[in-house]
């Protein structure tokens, strides 16, 4: 028994493949699909239907989680256009960006050892703002210029920034525990 998983994530939700999407429409489409396929709708039915429902609901969750995160959506769009990011192996970054990263790391490290919770919160807010700037650039490169090489570079940078954010969150968690 085969499920037609050949549909890409955008097709699954019936929305045009682009970086800038209407999040409310995405969410509504996701909910409409789950309303049809979620295992809760099949709990009293046969094994076959329950299994299929789980596979479909899993697929819908995967697609939704990918598309709703800006980074996930960008990476997926690049993938659809034949561009792979190779985040793990390709770590070539502009020197300016690397300098900035080092400054961030230092600031986080200092706030961490000083157990300065407000400062960590402040850094987190600053980082969020910078990530938003990057996301605007992504929108331009992906939707307007269709410059996938540049977009891939931004995605790699955003991935770095995401790691910084995780670091801040972990530091906050450690201090609160």
């Amino acid at each position, binding site marked *: *028994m085969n499920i037609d998983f050949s549909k890409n994530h955008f097709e699954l939700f019936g929305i045009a493949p682009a970086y800038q999407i209407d999040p409310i429409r995405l969410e509504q489409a996701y909910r409409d699909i789950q309303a*049809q396929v979620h295992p*809760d709708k099949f*709990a*009293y*039915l046969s*094994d076959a239907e329950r299994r*299929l429902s789980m596979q479909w609901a*899993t697929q819908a969750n995967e697609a939704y989680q990918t598309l709703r995160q800006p980074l996930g959506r960008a990476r997926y769009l690049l993938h659809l256009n034949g561009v792979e990011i190779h985040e793990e192996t390709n770590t070539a970054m502009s020197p300016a960006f690397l300098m900035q990263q080092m400054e961030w790391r230092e600031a986080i490290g200092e706030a961490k050892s000083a157990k300065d919770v407000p400062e960590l919160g402040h850094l987190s807010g600053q980082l969020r703002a910078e990530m938003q700037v990057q996301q605007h650039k992504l929108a331009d490169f992906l939707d307007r210029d269709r410059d996938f090489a540049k977009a891939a570079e931004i995605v790699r940078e955003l991935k770095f920034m995401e790691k910084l954010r995780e670091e801040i969150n972990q530091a906050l968690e450690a201090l*609160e525990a």
Partner: protein
Amino acid sequence: MALLQIAEPGMSAAPHQHRLAVGIDLGTTNSLVATVRSGMSVVLHDENGRALLPSVVRYHADGSTDVGYPAQAMQSSDPHNTIVSAKRFMGRGLRDLPDAGSLPYQFADAPGMVQLKTVAGAKSPVEVSAEILKVLRDRAEKSMGGELVGAVITVPAYFDDAQRQATKDAARLAGLNVLRLLNEPTAAAVAYGLDNAAEGVYAVYDLGGGTFDISVLRLSKGVFEVLATNGDSALGGDDFDHRIYCWILEQAKLSGIKPQDARLLLTRAREAKEDLTAHPEVRITAVLSTGEMVDLTLSSEVFTEITRSLVNKTLVPSKKALRDAGLEVEDVKGVVMVGGSTRMSQIQHAVGEFFRQEPLNNLDPDKVVALGAAIQANVLAGNRSDDDWLLLDVIPLSLGIETMGGLVEKIIQRNSTIPVARAQEFTTFKDGQTAMSIHVVQGERELVSDCRSLAKFELRGIPPMVAGGARIRVTFQVDADGLLSVSAREKSSGVEASVVVKPSYGLSDDEITNMLRTSQENAKADMTARALREQQVEAGRLIEAIEAALHENGDHLLSAAERAEIDEGMASLRSALEGRDHLAIKEQTERLNHISETFAARRMDQSVQKALTGHKLEELEI
């Protein structure tokens, strides 16, 4: 005039027949069963009109048991054989129980899960829980006058895979068909949300007898979406009792007391805690078996003081849950209080302060979980209501596997919406390596030794290749009950090895069978009767499911030939059901399952199409 209804062949005589289903709150201290009756969720009472069943089981030498109030009454005089709070031991080994020494039980460390030595032999927490579930099942079947189609059993949201699996095993042992394991705070949110037509972000603060959960949900247009959950599966009212107990020992200068005295003082401690919700101070008196007298007065202030660190232990997970949800305290519209332990005034106060608002206490904190579970059970059993809703829940703890150096590589992150699956590829690190061991863990820490080990298995038969040549794909699938299955296969050479593991705390079918056997005296006859009964129920369920599906859209999804094949399969199963050969029934059930697979797939495709078409129409309207 009433017309005689004649059912068409292949159609259920009464397609809208109400299917009997219940919601069960299997609590640390008390358990409850509820059902939906005439559109209302109600808790079912025992013959004495009591809703709560104390989660206490007492074993007798002949293997018989007392469950509930009679067992609770004997817990001080027969502490070894009277098991309370068995939920704390579900899916836990001896080394997971730091306070085992202070509990009045004789533990035996069995592989996977701890056991308790009683006069009726060693009992696993799964067996103890099954005794409680059996009583609730009997209560429901007597009250509702028929056999149950299934049950929704609630579990703490922060239960890990081993604890969930143990709960499901207990239900199976009690002869219940588990429609779903539902997270307790989610069940409460359903009861609260539907009752109050709530919309927006809500937090559910659930402090039970032995577990603490905090869930952050978004309620909108009939969707209950859990954004994040956190908690402590070993923190609850019991710990508050224990603090009072320690305070008593200290104040009365007692040490090295006997188990029955320990149990007596723990009971007095619990009573004191409960009285303090209504009085500024309480008197605690007891006469120990040694003749020693205890006579103390505990004030609300002292109680607050000695339990301050416990209260704080609930606020840390609350902060984490909010952060994981990407929200601030101001975003939370209401905090629903669940669990008997939230009656304590210091809890009410601390929660109010943390969330900067009055907590919501308008539902009975003891009953709301069971009521919500019953509402969901009614829907899952196929008793559709007009206003349908959708529950989107999450997995509470990350899942990963062990990599080089005892480190954890996370494969599924905590708070992922379930069901969820993720695959990861691994490779061999030695030339000619033909086997690979895979160690599955759950938890947030970086080191394997700090996480819970769920399963270890070996993937054998990898074709010999140079190091890094093999490509082994490990797939994690978490179902809607939050239960994990893992499969792995090597795919580079076309040779496939595949294995599906059940986490090590889960019981194998053999073990379940063994437990059933030992729990019954005249094993053989009972086992056959039981196997027959189970197959009959399973077959009945399948026929009913297919009939419902055929009734809905059999005509336009099946060709005449396909329809005939399914009808023939159902007829064969029906004729097998007339006999008493459980193997024949099983064979025909499997056959019918197979025949109906294509139909099931088409129905699912149609459902998805329907969802998509809904959108296209909306788009046109814009």
